[in-house]
């Protein structure tokens, strides 16, 4: 019993760290621009496919395609910000949201069109097999992906706190007008955060492609879960997203284990509803 419980908690942590990384990308975009990027899950899917094709066509292991995924998604984020989102930044209420809906529908279906809706998998990646630690089995690709996610999340945290650009992003998050008055180019900060947020989910996609099925609709569930994580942690809060990601990973696996795997996402969503009922601003929001 305890062994199984430990195993489930470990599994929850493994997926939770990855959730955190995905959600941090999303919460950065939100924090700076007050936008929910609905295409976030589809960006994840693109990251997975880039990694898949690099492996299939050029034999490049997912582990080495991480920087390529990051770069490609960073560029995509910049372009989408520059040519679509920035057009509606001053527009009415939800116009930004509708734009990202359009992007999401477009990307997901372009993937169906070019790559068919089939499920794919990276066969025999460099990392495979399991470690056995006492009673707990640890899948190596999952463990590396999670450890990598933690490292990247921590680097983002350092970047925001220690570098000038990072501080400019944080300042814009806190107060856009004051930031502008202090000489921060907020337009550049917007573009940069959209790019970085997208790059982070691209990295998560490369990690995920090491052990997860790759198909055009894969972003759907991950996207929804990451919205919940961001809201649960408090919109715009990097630390909140990190904590909430781990929490949701654990709740999901334990819920699936103790109740019914079919309901694991329902349990996550229910937990979100209960939490915001008690704390409408999320765990670490203000």
């Amino acid at each position, binding site marked *: 019993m305890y062994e199984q419980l430990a195993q489930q908690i470990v599994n929850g942590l493994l997926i939770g760290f990855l959730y955190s990384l995905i959600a941090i990308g999303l919460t950065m975009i*939100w924090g700076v621009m007050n936008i*929910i990027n609905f295409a976030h899950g589809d960006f994840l899917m693109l990251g997975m496919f880039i990694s898949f094709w690099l492996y299939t066509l050029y034999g490049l292991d997912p582990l080495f395609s991480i920087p390529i995924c990051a770069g490609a998604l960073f560029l995509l984020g910049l372009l989408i910000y520059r*040519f*679509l*989102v920035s*057009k*509606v930044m001053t*527009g*009415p*209420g*939800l*116009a930004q*949201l*509708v*734009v*990202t*809906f*359009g*992007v*999401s*529908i*477009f*990307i*997901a*279906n*372009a*993937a*169906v*069109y070019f790559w068919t*809706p089939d499920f794919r998998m990276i066969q025999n990646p460099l990392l495979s097999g399991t470690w056995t630690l006492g009673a707990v089995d640890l899948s190596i690709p999952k463990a590396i992906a999670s450890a990598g996610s933690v490292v990247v999340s921590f680097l983002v945290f350092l970047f925001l706190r220690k570098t000038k650009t990072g501080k400019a992003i944080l300042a814009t998050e806190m107060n856009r007008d004051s930031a502008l008055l202090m000489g921060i180019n907020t337009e550049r900060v917007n573009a940069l955060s959209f790019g970085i947020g997208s790059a982070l989910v691209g990295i998560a996609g490369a990690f995920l492609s090491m052990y997860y099925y790759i198909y*055009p609709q894969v972003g*759907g569930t991950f996207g*929804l879960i990451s*919205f*919940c994580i*961001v*809201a649960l942690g408090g*919109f715009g809060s990097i630390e909140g997203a990190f904590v909430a990601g781990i929490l949701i990973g654990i709740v999901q696996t334990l819920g699936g284990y103790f109740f*019914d795997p*079919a*309901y694991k*996402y*329902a349990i996550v*969503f*229910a937990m*979100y*509803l209960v939490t*915001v*009922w008690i704390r*409408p*601003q*999320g765990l670490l929001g203000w």
Partner: protein
Amino acid sequence: MEKTAFRRIAPGAAVLAALLVFPHFVKGSFPMHVMIMTFMFAMLGVAWNLLGGYAAMFSFGQAAFFGIGAYTSTILLMYYNVNPWIGLFAGGALAALTGAAIGIPCSNLRGHYFAIASIAFAEIVRIQFNNWKFVAAAEGLSLPLLPASLRNFMFHTTKAPYYYIMLAFLALSLLLCRYVSTNRMGFYLRAVKESHEVAKGMGISFVRYRLYAIMISAFLTAMAGTFYAQYILYIDPESVLILPISVQIVLVAMLGGAGTILGPVIGAAILVPLSEYTRVWLGYKGTGLDMMIYGALIMLISAYQPKGVWGMLTSIGKRAK
């Protein structure tokens, strides 16, 4: 004076007359289907507008109410032999109650927190129906075929009755929306939208009016759900409860121009034919090309015409004068 009143009413009357005679001139089954779907999404957009447009409660979970309406009337008809018209009201009432139950904890959530909460709620409903043996889980339900009549809410040889029923539903929703927006409730909702704190200070019980708005919106959405079940004669979670339905409803209202009475109608009149015709022309092998173009158009229209098509039309109208 008389002339301006005439000019105000005439365009609307002309459109209505054209819509009323449309089925007599267009006999094709597909154009009729497109019109019916347009009316239905217009109605769903109007219902969404009560929440999102007037009260700033951006619901992305309308599919839950739509599905509850579709499933309630269908279950009542299949298992208990209840007339679909009674099922329609039962579904509406159940959706309104569900809306109130979810609305009480959520009504003090703002902006994006409400949006995510509504998605979470709708996903829970979808997962539940997807695993619920009583409603045939993911297999879905085929409605029993009854003799065609208005009483049975079922017609087999012609789509015209469905057309008129949906048009009537849409008219009813528009009248209701107009009534609400010019009534005390509409002013209260907009006051709350402008500022929670001020409205509260004025002594407006915003939770109560927000709850009313959710219940009305849920009721109308469930009505459309029952209609859909009676029209398609087959429902499953994939066709009535999924997030893309909720998204389509938001798009209809937003593209038309949220917060205006006719906005969702315009939005539906553009989006629904667009998606139906691209599907028929390009989607013949399920290649995704149709939805790709649909998505591209949405992102381009909304990025370069952010006030909604209604806003675009009115600004063209002003320039023409």
